[in-house]
């Protein structure tokens, strides 16, 4: 139902939200020795999400896990930590903006629908 209503945007919003969590985890672990920074491959995660919606199987998260990749650091640090705060900040900002954009698409859909229901 929600997939028909919002199209790709419902799934995109979920993936954006998940990516926000992953990036926040990286920022939280900026000083943890041996921590490997991760990021979500957005296109792959979105495809997996859409496939999961079509198959209507809730336990199909293998594709989503495959979309969670490790970052390659520009310069490796001595303690094995691969978080680079500037990159994480940039990715976080980009993701927040994209989340906002997706959210406004969803809101637009909802507005259209409410207007149609009210018959204004």
């Amino acid at each position, binding site marked *: 139902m929600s997939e028909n209503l919002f199209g790709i945007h419902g799934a995109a919003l979920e993936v954006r939200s998940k990516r926000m969590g992953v990036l926040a*985890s990286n*920022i939280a672990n*900026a000083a943890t*020795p*041996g921590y490997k920074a991760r990021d979500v491959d957005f296109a792959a995660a979105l495809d997996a999400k859409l496939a999961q919606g079509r198959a209507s199987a809730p336990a199909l998260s293998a594709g989503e896990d495959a979309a969670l990749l490790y970052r390659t650091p520009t310069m490796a640090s001595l303690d094995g930590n691969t978080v680079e705060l500037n990159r994480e900040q940039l990715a976080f900002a980009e993701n927040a903006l994209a989340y*906002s954009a997706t*959210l406004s698409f969803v809101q637009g859909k909802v507005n259209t629908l409410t207007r149609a229901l009210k018959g204004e």
Partner: protein
Amino acid sequence: MSDGRPVTLFNLTERAMSAQLVRMNAATSNLANAGSVASSADQAYRPIRAVFTAEVDRASGLTSVSSGALVRAETEPTKRYDPGHPLADRDGNVFEAGVDESAEMVEIMESARQYQNMVQAMQTAKQLMLETLRSK
């Protein structure tokens, strides 16, 4: 996880902030003890360091952080010849804590920076969550 509650972005931020606080306190303690003197190498103050560990939460996919243990750095104290010192040993030496003040200051600055970064990320995330909630 440590307390059985599901990990959200807010608790992730909370844990990251307390971990940074421990780290900052450790560095501040080292600074406070810089220049402290003892009468033997064993009694001299050794700087402490907070070592973080990552905590993976499978259910939410978030990785929070905790300051696992405070470790004493094996920095040898500096031996100084000062026979007039009340704590001087039989040979007239005192042992000064091996604290590198500039390194500690840098540690505090880095910790503060990461703390700020986490708070900023949390604020952005909260803003987005509120926007999502308010949409009708």
